């Protein structure tokens, strides 16, 4: 028989947000960069069939990170919405803003409704206009927030490191070649906890690249840049290094949202695979975790299995937020 426990709304929302953020940070980054003729998307994605960047409509593209089955659902919904609106009205009446609003409402409702698991996704909706000044990139987060991005935008993986790299080097009105080189270099840029940075060359075949190109003569401006053209644009960059074996990438396992049994940390209700993940700070704001109420001594935290990443064992501080907010064994609960 289940007992109703009181959980404060703040804690409930925070837990859901932590859960979603963690899933999103696990994958690899997607970069969107505005260049002279439109918007460029680059992501590290070894799969040739399961895309992170796709076409929605004539001038609108979609990019996502996180759980494949969830963002694929959103992508298909977007294509249906756009095609239906374009068929019922006119092709010009399908706008990126309308689509971003529909996504925001959907993600927001799912996030705040108690009955559904929040989507572990972050999305870009980009739309190009007649001029570079009319181009738009919308960023939608798991909780339905919409932000209007300018110049460049990064989501997923170590987004802050990649964004910092782009911030230093981004220039407006770049050619496709320059923008592509910059984006690929940014994705290969990593920093460790001590702030030391390293750059690796991502092999051409591991890159998924697509553009919204306003110079295309067809009404549909979305175009994928395939391997041959990509090597031509990137030129010789030295020997490639495949990504180190990080946590497995979502697109490779588009199965149902099942929890993977191995290496599950029982003290963390949101954890599925405990990789070398930093604890639950916001990857965007770096906001520190709020400590939950300390459990009384008669309910010791459950034993933690050895972590594969070899985190220092005696480190109760950052592990605190991993614990359930209310211990079911707690007689005071």
């Amino acid at each position, binding site marked *: 028989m289940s007992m109703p426990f009181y959980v404060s709304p703040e804690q409930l929302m925070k837990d859901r947000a932590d859960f979603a953020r963690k899933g999103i940070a696990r994958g690899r980054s997607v970069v969107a960069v505005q260049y002279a003729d439109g918007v460029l998307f680059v992501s590290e994605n070894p799969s040739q069939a399961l895309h992170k960047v796709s076409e929605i409509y004539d001038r609108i593209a979609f990019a996502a990170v996180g759980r494949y089955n969830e963002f694929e659902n959103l992508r298909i919904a977007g294509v*249906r919405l756009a095609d*239906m609106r374009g068929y019922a009205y006119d092709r010009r009446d399908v706008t990126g803003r309308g689509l971003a609003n529909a996504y925001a409402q959907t993600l927001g409702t799912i996030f705040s409704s108690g009955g559904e698991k929040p989507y572990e996704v972050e999305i870009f909706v980009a739309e190009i206009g007649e001029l570079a000044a009319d181009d738009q990139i919308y960023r939608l987060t798991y909780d339905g927030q919409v932000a209007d991005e300018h110049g460049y935008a990064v989501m997923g993986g170590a987004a802050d490191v990649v964004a910092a790299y782009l911030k230093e080097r981004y220039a407006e009105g770049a050619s496709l070649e320059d923008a592509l080189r910059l984006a690929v270099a940014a994705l290969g840029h990593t920093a460790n906890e001590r702030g030391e940075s390293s750059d690796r060359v991502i092999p051409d075949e591991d890159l998924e690249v697509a553009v919204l190109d306003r110079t295309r003569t067809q009404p549909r401006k979305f175009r994928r840049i395939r391997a041959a053209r990509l090597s031509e644009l990137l030129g010789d960059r030295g020997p490639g290094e495949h990504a180190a074996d990080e946590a497995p990438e979502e697109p490779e396992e588009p199965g149902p949202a099942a929890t993977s049994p191995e290496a599950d940390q029982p003290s963390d209700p949101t954890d599925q695979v405990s990789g070398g993940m930093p604890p639950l700070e916001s990857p965007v704001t770096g906001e520190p975790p709020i400590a939950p109420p300390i459990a009384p001594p008669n309910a010791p935290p459950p034993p933690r299995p050895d972590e594969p990443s070899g985190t220092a064992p005696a480190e109760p501080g950052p592990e605190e937020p991993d614990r359930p907010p209310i211990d079911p064994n707690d007689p005071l609960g």
Partner: protein
Amino acid sequence: MIPAGSGSRLPDAFLAPGTSSFTDFLTAQSPELLPSSRSLPQGNAGDLAPHGTTIVAATYPGGVVMAGDRRATMGNIIAQRDIEKVFPADEFSCVGIAGTAGLAVEMVRLFQTELEHYEKIEGTTLSMDGKANRLAALIRSNLGMAMQGLAVVPLFAGYDLTGDQGRIFSYDVTGGRYEETAFHSVGSGSLFARGALKKLYRDDLSAEECVTALVQALYDAADDDSATGGPDVTRRIFPVVQVITADGGRRLPDEEVASTADRVIAARMNRPDGPAAALT
């Protein structure tokens, strides 16, 4: 009908996995948008709306060409002089329509959306036969209206990238789909156009020659069928010509079609019946 742009989350049907067909999705979600879901009162509605007339198509080594005249008629009235009846369906195919113009244009829009929708959702294009079958299904769903006089008869042509050749499909009002070899025509002037093509067509035509043969055929159709429009030299209105090759389809610019039509007209000044074929 359409979920509003703001204020509401996407309905569950949008997020449900399942069909990659736009028509199937509309059938479930907004059937009132489909042409096939309308019911007509009893009686013949055939005289109510303009009718499109003649479409011709022919293959040549390396591609396929489709051309349509520009006239729409309502009984003895010319309803429109510059209607367009040949449309790109996707990058490698086009569709021309004869019959009730309003329904036909709507059906073409649905067909275009259907192909594009499938391509975006599945990440790959339908096969040439798949496209032809989807169009057959759309025509079949219009059978009720066809029996009340609002028939739509398309001609479908495209470049088959797997077989490396241009292909042409014709249809009847019940959705019957027939693959044609070399050339075909539909619409009120189709008999005359087909007769002309029989005498003009060779299987080693170049793209330009193929376009000329089709313009000649449309001229012959207009010559003998009052509902088919000939080249309008005073208003400079010429047929719509769509050329599809392995590189994709394009509509020939009006100037190119105009110069071809001008040459055809100049030759007909000397011989009004057009070029003479060899007797044996």
